[in-house]
């Protein structure tokens, strides 16, 4: 089993390399050389050229990319064009806020979305089902940043209950967490519901009923156990979407996390900063999907068998 885990982790490496290549290539398209961006528009051309030479800007694309990878292995993501300090430092500074936001949002999303989805499926066509399904459709269509603004409007300005920006106390996190989790909660709820509906329709559920099992046993022991696997995948994929939504949420609530860092860095054309953050977030997402895969192998006996052999 350990062999399987190691094998999967090793397989992830080429994918991550590809991810870095893609981000690197995209940012490479940006106009302006590093020298120019660092020294500013007014700096003399010779200084710019010299700096570019030092930074290896004139090397061919693949050489630059290879150097970038080698540097990353040493933990060096380059220096910020703006501050000159190692980019990774700033990333690590900002990471906790984003982690706190995303983790709590996911917990909220799963603990509410999944049970409601299951409930809706079990009581299909009931008034409750209709209510939840329709609400979910609405919530999924809400832009995360608009919802944030509406929350600020209501809870900060009108009612004065909660602070609208910054991240000093836990109170500062309440609205962002709710804002971030709601649209994705809706998605998870709908997908959980449809997965459960499909599972309940399976033949082996009918067999369980024919044995005389109670509805509760049928739903939990038979249907849910099988539905759990696709549901875990859904949660993993939604996490990826949520990381994107975190950028918008942080912006609305002025939280000093990776999201706002990326936005500022883009505005200031601080390319190493942008790359480091995007790569880190992508790697985080890949790891989540890896965990999903491993969970699959741990829970589903069919997959477990496949990997015991290889």
């Amino acid at each position, binding site marked *: 089993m350990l062999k399987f885990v190691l094998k999967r982790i090793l397989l992830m490496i*080429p*994918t*991550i390399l*590809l*991810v870095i*290549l*893609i*981000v690197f290539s*995209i*940012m*490479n*398209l*940006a*106009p302006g050389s590093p020298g120019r961006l660092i020294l500013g528009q007014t700096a003399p051309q010779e200084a710019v050229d010299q700096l570019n030479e030092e930074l290896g800007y004139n090397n061919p694309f693949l050489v630059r990319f290879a150097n970038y990878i080698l540097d990353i292995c040493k933990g060096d993501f380059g220096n910020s064009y703006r501050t000159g300090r190692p980019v990774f430092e700033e990333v690590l500074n900002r990471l906790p806020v984003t982690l706190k936001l995303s983790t709590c949002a996911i917990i909220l999303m799963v603990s509410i979305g999944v049970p409601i989805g299951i409930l809706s499926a079990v009581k299909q066509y009931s008034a409750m089902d209709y209510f939840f399904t329709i609400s979910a*459709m*609405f919530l*999924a*269509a*809400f*832009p*995360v*940043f*608009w919802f944030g*603004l*509406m929350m*600020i*409007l209501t809870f900060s*300005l009108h009612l004065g209950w909660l602070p609208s920006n910054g991240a000093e106390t836990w109170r500062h996190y309440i609205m962002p967490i709710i804002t971030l989790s709601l649209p994705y909660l809706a998605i998870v709820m709908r997908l959980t519901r449809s997965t459960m509906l499909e599972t309940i329709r399976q033949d082996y559920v009918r067999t369980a009923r024919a044995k005389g099992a109670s509805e509760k046993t049928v739903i939990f022991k038979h249907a849910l156990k099988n539905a759990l696997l696709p549901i875990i995948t859904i949660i993993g994929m939604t996490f*990826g*979407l949520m*990381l*994107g*939504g975190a*950028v*918008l949420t942080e*912006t609305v609530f002025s939280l000093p996390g990776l999201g706002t860092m*990326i*936005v500022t860095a*883009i*505005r200031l054309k601080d390319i190493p900063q*942008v790359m480091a953050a*995007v790569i880190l*977030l*992508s*790697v985080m*997402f*890949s790891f989540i*999907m890896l965990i999903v895969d491993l969970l699959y192998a741990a829970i589903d006996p069919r997959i477990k068998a496949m990997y015991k052999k290889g």
Partner: protein
Amino acid sequence: MEAVNKTQTKKNSQIAEIWRRLRKNKAAMIGLVIISIFAFFAIFAENIASYEEFAVKQNIRERLQPPSSEHIFGTDGYGRDVFARLIHGGRISLTIGIVSTAVSVFFGAILGSMAGFYGGKIDNFITRITDAVMCIPAILLALCVASALGNGMINLMIAISISQIPGFTRVIRSVILTLRDQDYIRAARSCGTSDARIIYKHILPNAIGPIIVQATMAISDMILTAAGLSFIGMGIAPPQPEWGTMLSEAKEHIRYAPYLIAFPGISIVLNALSFNLLGDGLRDALDPRLKD
């Protein structure tokens, strides 16, 4: 000749049947109606309220006026009529949604078909790249591309399309993989039918269903992503009245003119919701077995 006519009538009645099933779905119909209303306003935006005069020209004396009979949705921080801006913004949003989706579907179909149909190394190569791209959260990918290319509608559309191409590649690839091994495809091949003809006559008609459903949902995603990027300043820049941009400008006045936030937001929600409802309805109409 008669055989051709028969297949044509069969196809027509199939479409009629799908439309009939769709009509029964009230939610989908509501979505369709809402989309039509927005589309109407988008198409006739210029006739209803001239762009230059109402949406863009600043009128500082009339700024920040709440909804009234003269300005049904009020005016914004620069005195511009919010309703006029909304409908021109609708034009932008719908254009972005539909064009970007079309582009994504096009490239996704090509890549997905190649991967699914030819398999082997080509499939491997395309799938690996698709998987890698999908590791990057869609908004971040669009953000990167938008930042590299700069502001503007075309750049925004390129950025958003790219972020959705992997999704379509996957869907189309999996449809083709399922169909490729069907017996009737093997039969066609054994008769000597060319690859292109097989794709055109047998595979595409079956793939159209899932593609249409996915595309409809994608339009909704694209509208949301475009608004999001514009909101943080990476998409459509002021003074253009994209809804996300309008929200970003409205943020300053949140205390005294909250209606500025309500209207663009509601427009985004209604649009995204309608396309979702329509997409859901299409999915049920195309394969009724999935419903009960």
